[in-house]
């Protein structure tokens, strides 16, 4: 995998780990908040229940109190209240002899509470620190609550407590002494506004806890689904993005491979070109050697062979072999693998190129005019530049021959400015047609027909100059010909 895309995927991974963490934390917090809300709601509703119970008791008590108590038939459950024995008219007899006894508010309420306790889930108890009826005596918790009312002036107090493994809310509300109370409680020394006692309400939490647990279960279930969907969504977008990065990379690699193939193709084409040039360069010395051999044969056949001539022929042949040997060096230099950059003068690269192509130009009556003004060495892959030069000069040669130009010439100017070294290769081959010049650097564009042109020469030249040498290559028509300009930056 390519480095750049590895980094991209790493970035994506980090990004998604962060999003995942944030989403998880947010969802967890939100869940916690919801559960907390439910918990509060449980407390609030049970408290409301307790308060309502209290109010109901209070109202009932008020009603009894507002009538100054009620008279009922004395029964087993409702005997005359012994704690009211000092009250006048506690017991009445109607004119037809029916006995009635007075029930004071606390008495009625206690009966209500005892008889109907738990009917609404709430169990009430009316009590006081200062009792008329010792049966109404407060529990330890009620004492604590009553104390709080007396000491702190609070009107209610509650606690959640567990009794016999069951949770209850213990709620107590103060009863404030009113004028109507004094009928029965007057002699206990209360004044209006005093805390006279309280009503405690006791509600089991089962129902509320069950509701709470059910709701929490529901919430947790919904959150799990939501969390799962979020992660699914994240995973889906993650996969999509990763896929697109991988696709990008694949395209990049494909593109790179395509470019490598093109480079190889153009290398091969250049090599083919070179081989034909070698053939050309070798043909002449071999022909000369053959001719000296022919001379020897003729001398033998004509019986004119003599030692001096023989020596002469041999030395001529040897001279040609030296020439051949030198050409091998030239080409070996050209085919040398270009693994490392070297410091080299651009004009020397051009000279290397001309040593290879000059012969073929001369043979075709093409004059080469060189104007070099170049003294700055550049650190480049010189073989690649050489390939570009050969390409352009070969194209110029072909254009000159195709157009049958008289006084054909190629002018090579190499000069420098502050930032770059510039090579201009100009011919007088009548210029390039407008529709060709715009496509001249396109891959697989050729004017030479499939047989002789690959259409890669100038495309690869452009690639080499722009991508490998960070330079520029441009072409324009000039008087009677075209000019290729190669600008290579000094740094």
């Amino acid at each position, binding site marked *: 995998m390519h480095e750049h895309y590895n980094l991209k995927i790493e970035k994506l991974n980090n990004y998604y780990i962060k999003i995942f963490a944030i989403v998880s934390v947010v969802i967890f917090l939100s869940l916690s908040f919801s559960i907390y809300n439910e918990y509060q709601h449980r407390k609030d509703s049970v408290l409301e229940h307790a308060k309502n119970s209290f109010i109901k008791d209070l109202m009932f008590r008020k009603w009894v109190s507002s009538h100054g108590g009620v008279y009922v038939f004395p029964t087993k459950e409702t005997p005359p209240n012994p704690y009211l024995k000092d009250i006048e008219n506690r017991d009445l007899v109607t004119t037809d002899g029916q006995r009635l006894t007075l029930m004071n508010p606390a008495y009625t309420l206690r009966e209500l509470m005892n008889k109907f306790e738990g009917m609404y889930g709430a169990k009430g108890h009316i009590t006081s620190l200062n009792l008329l009826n010792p049966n109404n005596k407060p529990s330890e918790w009620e004492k604590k609550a009553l104390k709080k009312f007396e000491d702190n002036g609070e009107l209610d107090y509650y606690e959640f407590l567990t009794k016999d493994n069951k949770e209850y809310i213990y709620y107590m509300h103060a009863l404030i002494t009113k004028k109507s109370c004094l009928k029965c409680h007057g002699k206990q020394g209360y004044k209006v506004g005093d805390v006279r006692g309280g009503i405690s309400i006791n509600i089991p939490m089962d129902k509320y806890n069950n509701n709470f647990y059910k709701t929490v279960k529901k919430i947790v279930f919904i959150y799990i689904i939501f969390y799962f969907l979020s992660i699914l969504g994240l995973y889906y977008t993650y996969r999509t993005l990763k896929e697109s990065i991988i696709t990008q990379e694949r395209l990049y690699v494909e593109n790179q491979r395509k470019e490598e193939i093109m480079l190889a193709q153009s290398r091969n084409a250049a090599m083919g070109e070179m081989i034909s040039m070698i*053939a050309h360069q070798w043909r002449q*010395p071999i022909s000369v050697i053959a001719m000296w051999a022919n001379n020897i*044969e003729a*001398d033998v*056949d004509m019986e004119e062979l003599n030692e001096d001539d023989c020596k002469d022929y041999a030395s*001529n042949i040897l001279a040609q072999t030296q020439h051949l040997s030198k050409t091998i060096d030239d080409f070996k230099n050209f085919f040398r693998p270009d693994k490392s950059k070297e410091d080299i003068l651009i004009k020397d690269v051009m000279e290397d190129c001309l040593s290879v192509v000059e012969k073929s130009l001369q043979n075709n009556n093409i004059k080469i005019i060189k104007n070099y003004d170049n003294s700055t060495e550049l650190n480049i892959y010189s073989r690649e530049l050489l390939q570009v030069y050969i390409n352009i000069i070969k194209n110029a040669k072909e254009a000159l021959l195709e157009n049958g130009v008289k006084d054909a010439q190629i002018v090579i100017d190499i000069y420098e400015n502050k930032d770059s070294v510039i090579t201009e290769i100009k011919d007088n081959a009548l210029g390039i047609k407008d529709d060709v010049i715009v496509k001249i650097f396109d891959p697989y564009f050729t004017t030479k027909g499939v047989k002789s042109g690959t259409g890669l020469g100038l495309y690869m030249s452009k690639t080499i100059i722009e991508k490998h040498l960070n330079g520029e290559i441009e072409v324009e028509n000039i008087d009677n010909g075209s000019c290729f300009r190669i600008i290579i930056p000094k740094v």
Partner: protein
Amino acid sequence: MNPEIKELKERVKELNILYCEDEDEMRLGSKLFLSKFFVSVDDASDGKEGLDKFKQKKYQVVFTDIMMPNMDGLEMLKNINELDKDTFTVTLTASEASEEKIKRASDLYFRKPITYENMITVMKEIVNKFNL
């Protein structure tokens, strides 16, 4: 030793020969070879010089290279054929291009390097051509 060669030489030696070749080494070696068969061998280093020489003297046989500066072999042959279509022309070239054109332009055509047998063939063709 081939006694046939000596006989060939005797038959062709009186002909005037013009040889055009721009490569000095090639011209030297070939001219020497031709001189072993022909008494009179003139040489030229390009097509223009060759045509000039042809205009000044009667040559029965012209040997020429194709790729030469100033005027190439094809153009020179065209001019020579216009001047004297009986001239026997032999092309000796390294060029791989326009083979058909070259074959049409000359009586005999050989690719360099030229073998001894090629040259003997040339001599025999000359004998036939001029009924020597």
